[in-house]
């Protein structure tokens, strides 16, 4: 073997990457070639010198990086987290219900649908607001927009240029049956609400658990956003709300296209109730709230999220075990019946997990999402 052919073997020798045959050839050559022995020694010296020169980063570098990261972290992701095991269902239910009561959220009676209550809340608030007050009028209008968005009421004119089914969950609800009763029918146009707000929709009789004359409740702020699907709804004529599911991005299942959001983003706290049959709640889904205006490529990177409502992004995280998690998300109301039904349903089968931002002091103004997680083997995933 000639010296000019030996170099790859010398390099491989340094890394322990030579095969037995290569190593034997190298050693035979080194026995007879002083030049290559010296070359090997020199290369070993270079490697040792390079390897020994580990520098320490500037002492403030980590702090600088973390400072930048914490500035970016201001967009809320997870806040405090309750993990409620099924064993502690009763206690947890009591605690959450106490939280609900503390949050001054009304508990409608069993036979009163939450959607009726939502409609009533909107109408009652509209009645309480002076229509000559532009701010109040706008508030009502915005509330209605938000309510329309969250309840996915049919509004073909809904203003978003999104095309995919997942996107439609965000702004335009799929063309589903509108709510069946007049009281449950959201106002078609925001302007109509403003103009007609002096004549509130007649409230349903069974939603009087809250006294609408209480000023503390009817502040000029959005009412509790209620209801898309009540777990124990008894009215069979109610069309189930659309479920928005997204099982992660694949070639066959591309992410929803990004559109231009034209409606008001979800503001305020979002309470997320997770239903899952796995104890591994953390990391099941990435949950991020972005104002729609900032939902640019820069913010989201290459990872698109299922867009629920305006500005809320949910997507399942990839799992280590090769299985695939999918999310089905509905908005729900936090009332006694829903909660107890949820806890009953989950006893022994599901885990319930409640995420809420640290900023939540009351469930009033809270958007409540019920996220049902199902996990299936990847090969059976559709």
């Amino acid at each position, binding site marked *: 073997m000639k010296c000019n052919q030996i170099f*790859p073997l010398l390099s491989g020798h340094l890394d322990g990457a030579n095969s037995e045959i290569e190593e034997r050839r190298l050693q035979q050559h080194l026995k007879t070639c002083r030049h290559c022995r010296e070359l090997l020694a020199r290369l070993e010296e270079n490697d040792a010198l*390079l390897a020994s*020169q*580990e520098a320490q*980063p500037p002492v403030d570098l980590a702090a600088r990086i973390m400072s930048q990261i914490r500035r970016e*972290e201001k967009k809320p992701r997870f806040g405090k987290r309750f993990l409620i095991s099924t064993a502690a269902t009763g206690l947890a239910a009591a605690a959450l219900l106490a939280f609900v009561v503390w949050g001054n959220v009304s508990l409608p009676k069993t036979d009163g649908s939450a959607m009726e209550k939502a409609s009533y809340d909107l109408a009652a608030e509209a009645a309480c607001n002076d229509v000559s007050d532009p701010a109040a009028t706008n508030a009502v209008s915005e509330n209605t927009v938000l309510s329309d968005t969250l309840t996915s009421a049919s509004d073909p004119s809904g203003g978003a240029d999104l095309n995919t089914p997942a996107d439609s969950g965000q702004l335009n609800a799929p063309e589903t049956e509108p709510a069946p009763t007049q009281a449950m029918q959201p106002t078609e146009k925001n302007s109509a609400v403003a103009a007609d707000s002096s004549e509130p929709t007649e409230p349903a009789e069974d939603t009087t658990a809250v006294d609408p004359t209480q000023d503390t409740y009817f502040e000029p702020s959005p009412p509790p956003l209620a209801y898309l699907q009540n777990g124990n709804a008894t009215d069979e004529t109610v069309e189930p709300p659309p479920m928005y599911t997204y099982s992660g991005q694949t070639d066959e299942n591309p992410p929803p296209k990004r559109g231009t959001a034209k409606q008001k983003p979800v503001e305020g706290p979002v309470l997320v109730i997770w239903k899952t049959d796995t104890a591994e709640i953390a990391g099941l889904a990435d949950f991020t709230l972005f104002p729609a205006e900032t939902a640019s490529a820069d913010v989201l990177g290459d990872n698109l999220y299922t867009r629920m409502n305006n500005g809320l992004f949910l997507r399942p995280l990839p799992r280590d075990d090769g299985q695939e998690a999918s999310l089905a998300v509905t908005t729900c109301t936090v009332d006694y019946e829903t909660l107890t039904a949820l806890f009953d349903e989950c006893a022994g089968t599901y885990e319930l997990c409640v995420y809420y931002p640290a900023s939540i002091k009351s469930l009033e103004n809270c958007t409540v999402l019920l996220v049902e997680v199902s996990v299936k083997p990847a090969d059976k995933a559709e």
Partner: protein
Amino acid sequence: MSNIIEEKKIIKKAAAGSADAFEQLLLKYQTPIYNLCLRMTGNPEDAADMTQEAFLKAWRSLSSFQFESSFSTWLYRLTTNTCLDYLRSLKRRPQCSLTVEDDEGEEQVLDVTDEAPTPEEALLSAEERSQLVHALSQLEASQRQIITLRVVNDLSYAEIAEILDVKEGTVKSRLARARDNLRKKLLQIGNKSELPASNR
């Protein structure tokens, strides 16, 4: 093994938005990442900037990390790409030299090592060290990259192959070529530095 599981948990937390979890990753990897950046860029200021850039990118895109490779491999790949992008951008701008003039007006190689020598280093002359660093800085970025990943970051061929998205055999041949070029650069530098002495 438990460390790997523990790290996975931390990564998942960080991917879900926990800056505290990410800080743990940062503290664990900042030194090797900084050293990679230092050898790639050739100076401590750029190395700090590239380290920061790489970790910010990691933070922003962690949710896309699929656990298909190890986290360190993913992070090294992200870092080397960040450095290569930076070096490419430098090509479009005037570069500052890695040599400085000493008090007598003679050109001296700028020593970019910024640390006090270890006992092992003390055995080697400062001149040798600066020559080696200078020679390394004169290699093509891709050769600097592969030598640094192997020798400074002590990564295996398999890890390097994954980072560079090449086969292990390619890593072996590229490393041999890079070491050969480094040796030649050292010879050139050594000859230059020996010329004045031989003339005396």
